[in-house]
């Protein structure tokens, strides 16, 4: 067997990211005493370089390398760019939080970059092994980052829960993948698709494999009934980590859904569509109804995240390219909204005053009108109030579901969107109409942080006023022209 050198230039962003991260890992040990901020800035510069590398060689057609285990297409590049942008936001806010809580370690940023690398691998994976390895690289980095605040019992508990349930989910998924290999005899997603098209596949084994794969995916996404870990982990983890968990990995999880269910198992649609419909319906109901009872903002956002995952799965359950495009549109916007929401919590938080309870936001308008306005943007966007982008993403997934004939699911989605509006608007009511417990003005936040918060929250309004281009980006990357 002769060995052909694979086309490495396609994987240049990943190679550069890995090299720079490894360098940073070593450099951090030297810098940690003399120049604390160096690691942070180097992290941001690394992300900018990688983002530029993706952008400068933007793929317009599908190219495969490494013997069919790596793919570069428009979808992968668009998702990678969004991951980079969201990660820059994550690290910006995290640094502030870590400095305030005296938990600033260079390893946080190094592990964060490894997590980004794992996401890149997942987004570009074209066979089952690489998909699994990417997922594991990302998850391992996440477990460690949550547990890094050692003296915090809550963080340790969250890390432990996430680790055990994550390992269980990985086991399920791996078992499903091995069965898929047993049914089709190939690891490559295109090979699996061809095998399915040829009709030589044992359908019982295929359905069995799909059940385990979908369970694994649902666990990772936090869809009901595999959602039990989400509120505890979001609540227990330090806010900087919740911010990470709730944003960029969701984009990568969408990529995994797309690669497995669409690139690989498109022809098994009748088998997985029903499961996804159930997951979507349950997630939307539980996410919307249980969040009403929460008094902690992080828990509330965790349940709202479960609800959002339900909407994404509804788009996927539509089972056509339009459905996937709308789901992608939704998940990207959700990731940006999460950065804005948790970023706001981080900017308000002081050591000893976490701004986690909804009651802490009582009368925020009197204490800091600008931040209250930004929070209003975030809450309106999450609730899906028209001028904000949150409205358009909901319309997109509901339209996809209706076009696919899932009218009852679309009706349920609208009802649940109305129910969830209650708890988003409650936060707004608490900020604007309740009397504050303390009347003192809040300490002013740093200019950098203020700018970042303002930017990430007002982007939601800006995108909402001009939703065309981001929507077009998502639809184009799946080879569709925009319908709306």
């Amino acid at each position, binding site marked *: *067997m002769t*060995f052909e050198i*694979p086309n490495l230039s396609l*994987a240049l962003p990943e190679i550069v990211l*890995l090299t720079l991260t*490894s360098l940073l*890992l070593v450099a951090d040990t030297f810098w940690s005493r003399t120049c604390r901020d160096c690691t942070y800035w180097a992290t941001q510069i690394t992300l900018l370089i990688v983002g530029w590398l993706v952008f400068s060689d933007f793929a317009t057609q599908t190219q495969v390398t*490494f*013997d069919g*285990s*790596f793919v570069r297409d428009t979808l992968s590049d668009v998702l990678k760019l969004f991951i980079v942008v969201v990660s820059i936001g994550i690290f910006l806010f995290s640094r502030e939080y870590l400095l305030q809580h005296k938990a600033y*370690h260079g*390893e946080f940023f*190094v*592990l964060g970059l*490894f997590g980004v*690398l*794992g996401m890149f*691998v997942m987004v570009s994976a074209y*066979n089952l*092994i*690489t998909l699994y*390895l*990417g997922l*594991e*690289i990302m998850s*391992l*980095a996440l*477990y*460690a980052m949550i*547990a*890094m605040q*050692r003296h915090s019992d809550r963080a340790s508990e969250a890390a432990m829960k996430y680790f055990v349930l994550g390992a269980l989910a990985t086991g399920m998924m791996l078992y499903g993948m091995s*069965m898929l290999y*047993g049914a089709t005899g190939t690891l490559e997603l295109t090979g699996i698709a061809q095998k399915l098209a040829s009709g030589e596949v*044992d359908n*019982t*084994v295929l359905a*069995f494999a799909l059940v385990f794969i979908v369970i694994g995916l649902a666990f990772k996404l936090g869809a009901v009934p595999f959602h039990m870990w989400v509120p505890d982990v979001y609540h227990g983890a330090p806010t900087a980590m919740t911010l990470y968990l709730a944003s960029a990995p969701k984009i990568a999880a969408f990529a995994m859904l797309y690669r497995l269910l669409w690139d690989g198992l498109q022809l098994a649609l009748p088998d997985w569509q029903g499961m996804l419909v159930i997951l979507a319906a349950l997630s939307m109901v539980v996410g919307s109804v249980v969040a009403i009872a929460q008094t902690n903002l992080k828990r509330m956002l965790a349940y709202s995240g479960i609800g959002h995952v339900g909407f994404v799965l509804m788009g996927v359950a539509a089972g056509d390219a339009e459905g996937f495009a709308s789901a992608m549109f939704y998940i990207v916007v959700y990731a940006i909204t999460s950065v804005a929401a948790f970023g706001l919590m981080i900017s308000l938080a002081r050591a000893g005053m976490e701004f986690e309870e909804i009651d802490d936001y009582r009368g925020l308008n009197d204490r800091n009108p600008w931040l209250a306005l930004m929070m209003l943007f975030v809450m309106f966007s999450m609730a899906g109030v028209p001028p904000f982008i949150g409205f358009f993403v909901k319309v997109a997934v509901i339209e996809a579901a209706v076009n696919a004939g899932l009218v009852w699911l679309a009706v349920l989605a609208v009802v649940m969107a109305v129910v969830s509006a209650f708890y988003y608007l409650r936060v707004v009511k608490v900020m604007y109409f309740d009397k504050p417990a303390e009347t003192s003005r809040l300490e002013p936040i740093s200019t950098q942080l203020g700018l970042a918060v303002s930017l990430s929250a007002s982007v939601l309004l800006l995108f909402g006023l001009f939703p065309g281009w981001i929507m077009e980006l998502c639809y184009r990357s799946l080879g569709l022209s925009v319908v709306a």
Partner: protein
Amino acid sequence: MSFEQLVFYAFAAIAAFAGLMVITVRNPVKAALWLVLAFVSTAAVWILAEAEFLGLVLILVYVGAVLVLFLFVVMMLDINLAEMKEGFTRYLPIGVLVSLVVFGLIYMVVGPEHFGLEQFKPTEHGPDYSNTKEIAVPLYTQHAYAFVLAAVLLLVGIVAAIALTLRRRPPSEALYQDIDAQVRVRAEDRLTMVKIPAEVEPDLPENKEEEEGAK
């Protein structure tokens, strides 16, 4: 039943029994030893399936290295067993029920009907067939990308483990031995000669009287 089948079922039964013992014995050291048995019998099954390299690697790496380390860790940790076993008997019936149902369902799919010898016929190999080479060549060519990624995964594991266990304490809190400094030290760094003027204590006649009075 052929001899090969007999051997297979014997080792499979040992592996299953050992696996059951791993999760039921009370002593974690014994559990680790049962795990050794489970691995060894699984390795035997693999060798029977003509995957000699994997079977040997399982014994060398898992039994030889990983489990020995594991045993050390288990012996060093003082785990409270009674606490960990709490709730075991309470949830046992429902656990057994669920696992039996799941086992039945899995058996229907993974049983001989779908994965029997009719569907997956063992291939005959010539005498010059090398199992190791069959694994090595695709591993370093076809799966080169995955191979590198596995290395990255291990690196992340190392970074995570060190980041979670390393305690950077300032030197004032913990005592570290700085051998360089110890070697370089000279007498004048440690010893200071201080001139102390001689003092003569004056007589204290009152004290003497008091002492006598006390007597």
